């Protein structure tokens, strides 16, 4: 049974947790002189981006409905503010809540509870967390919103859903001078994504994940496997919806429905990453696969490279997502006024295909110990876009879609406090 946490429930859960752990910490003795500790921390980004490709809108990621329009400076795509309240009544216990205000799927900046958990760390090697947690399905995937922590203004590929309500368990062990870490996660995802202007609610979808990571000196190798079972149906395929009716009337409608439906769809997401961060050099490379029955497999790869010179770190990055473009014919021959029907059915099948690449160049300037100014240019090529909204794509058949491109210029001031 899916379980959904409301913010109120989580707040009550956290408050109850504070009282419990205070009670448990009453007998604290040696080594507890620094506890309890209460900390308020924050992070933020003031960002601006610009492009001049008419008819195209640029989104930071698929959680945003609107995008930066051509010829106008947009201040909303990358800007955000986050606050974290952290209470450690005892060194084994921690309670944390984090809210972020950023552009949402509903085009507003209403704060969202992105983290809210109780952590119990009975041993140095082990930790358990319960509550709302980030999804760490790829390298640094649980810190995509923390601009100051990232070299780029935006991570090259941002996976959704990004949070889940449930638990995770972690085990760390020193090994040959380095540290081996295992983590398992289970719960129900939370959050919304937007595709072709339609919001999809990932709430209540089951998530299971495992991560193995080894860090030694500057090297980190990471293997992850996440499994997602989507709960809700795509709005356009719910009973009575126009697309549902259209598909149901096609000779090959059942097969097309199988490619489009999200209800009870299982998605597997294995990922491998290698990172090197030592001295002035930072480099990362990641390869992932996004697969699901009746979908073409999507391959995701990105690499970033940065080299610090004084307070400046120039960087470059390349990210690509590739999906085989296989279409199921409607079974209706073209002509006799049915071409538009065939086109609509074909275009609908691109909803979960992504063929997009991004070559980025940028410069990070750490002008203070907790603030950084970044300048970045991204040249994006797309046939089946993920973060780009290009309405003109729907006016032609997806099978004959050409590759298009745009360049986005961005500036961001990242800070933590």
């Amino acid at each position, binding site marked *: 049974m899916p379980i959904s946490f409301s913010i109120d429930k989580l707040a009550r859960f956290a408050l109850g947790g504070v009282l419990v752990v205070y009670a448990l910490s009453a007998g604290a003795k040696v080594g507890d002189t620094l506890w309890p500790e209460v900390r308020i921390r924050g992070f933020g980004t003031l960002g601006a981006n610009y492009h001049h490709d008419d008819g195209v809108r640029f989104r930071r990621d698929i959680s945003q409905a609107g995008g930066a329009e051509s010829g106008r400076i947009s201040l909303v795509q990358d800007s955000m503010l986050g606050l974290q309240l952290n209470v450690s009544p005892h*060194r084994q216990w921690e309670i944390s809540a984090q809210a972020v205000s950023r552009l949402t799927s509903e085009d507003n900046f209403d704060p969202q509870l992105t*983290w809210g958990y109780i952590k119990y760390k009975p041993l*140095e090697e082990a930790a358990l967390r319960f509550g709302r947690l980030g999804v760490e399905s790829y390298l640094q995937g649980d*810190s995509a919103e923390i601009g100051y922590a990232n070299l780029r203004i935006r991570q090259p590929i941002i996976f959704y859903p990004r949070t889940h309500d449930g638990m995770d368990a972690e085990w760390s*062990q020193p090994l040959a001078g380095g540290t081996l870490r295992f983590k398992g996660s289970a719960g129900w995802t939370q959050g919304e994504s937007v595709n072709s202007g339609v919001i999809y609610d990932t709430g209540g979808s089951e998530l299971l994940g495992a991560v193995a990571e080894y860090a030694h000196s500057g090297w980190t190798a990471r293997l992850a496997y996440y499994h997602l079972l989507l709960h809700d149906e795509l709005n356009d395929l719910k009973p009575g919806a126009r697309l549902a009716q259209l598909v149901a009337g096609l000779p090959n409608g059942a097969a097309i429905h199988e490619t489009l439906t999200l209800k009870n769809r299982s998605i597997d997401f294995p990922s491998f990453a290698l990172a090197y961060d030592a001295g002035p050099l930072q480099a990362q490379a990641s390869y992932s696969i996004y697969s699901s029955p009746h979908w073409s497999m999507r391959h995701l790869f990105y690499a970033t490279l940065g080299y*610090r010179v004084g307070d400046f770190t120039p960087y470059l990055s390349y990210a690509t997502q590739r999906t085989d473009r296989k279409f199921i014919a409607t079974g209706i021959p073209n002509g006799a006024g049915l071409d538009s029907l065939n086109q609509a059915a074909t275009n609908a099948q691109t909803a979960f295909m992504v063929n997009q690449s991004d070559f980025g160049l940028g410069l990070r300037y750490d002008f203070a110990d*907790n603030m950084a100014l970044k300048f970045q240019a991204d040249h994006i090529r797309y046939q089946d876009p993920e973060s780009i909204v290009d309405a003109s794509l729907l006016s032609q058949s997806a099978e004959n879609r050409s590759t298009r491109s745009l360049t986005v210029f961005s500036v961001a001031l990242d800070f933590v406090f």
Partner: protein
Amino acid sequence: MLANSYPFLRCFLLAVLICQPGLACAELVVIVNADRNVERISREEVVNIFMGRYRKLADGNAALPLEVKGNAPERRYFYGILLNKSLAEINAYWARLVFSGKTSPPVSVVSGGEVLEGVAGDPAMIGYLDSSLLDGRVKVVYALPEAGLP
């Protein structure tokens, strides 16, 4: 990176960095409580403890890091010599871990004297300070660079 490969160059860099206005000409040393059953720790252990990867020593007990806060010279030199990282990079690293709830940065205090008092008063603590501040309540388990360890 070059400094990591050549101990002599690291000694030289440390000497240049340490002998700055506001910080006495002495080496930075990592200390634990004198009652603790640990005599030496490796550079990798220092990195694991202060970067939040694994905070336990060979005696099986916890090692909770303590350091001078903000942009204090000791802090800048410690990470500069140990990892060849700027404070901005260290702060960015901690931002990633803190805001994803993974682990906490070292506990911050205002002076080397407080680091000494913290470690002397709590066997679980580990800190680094200017060696001129040492007294008998603590012992040195690592010196930066390694070649400088007596």
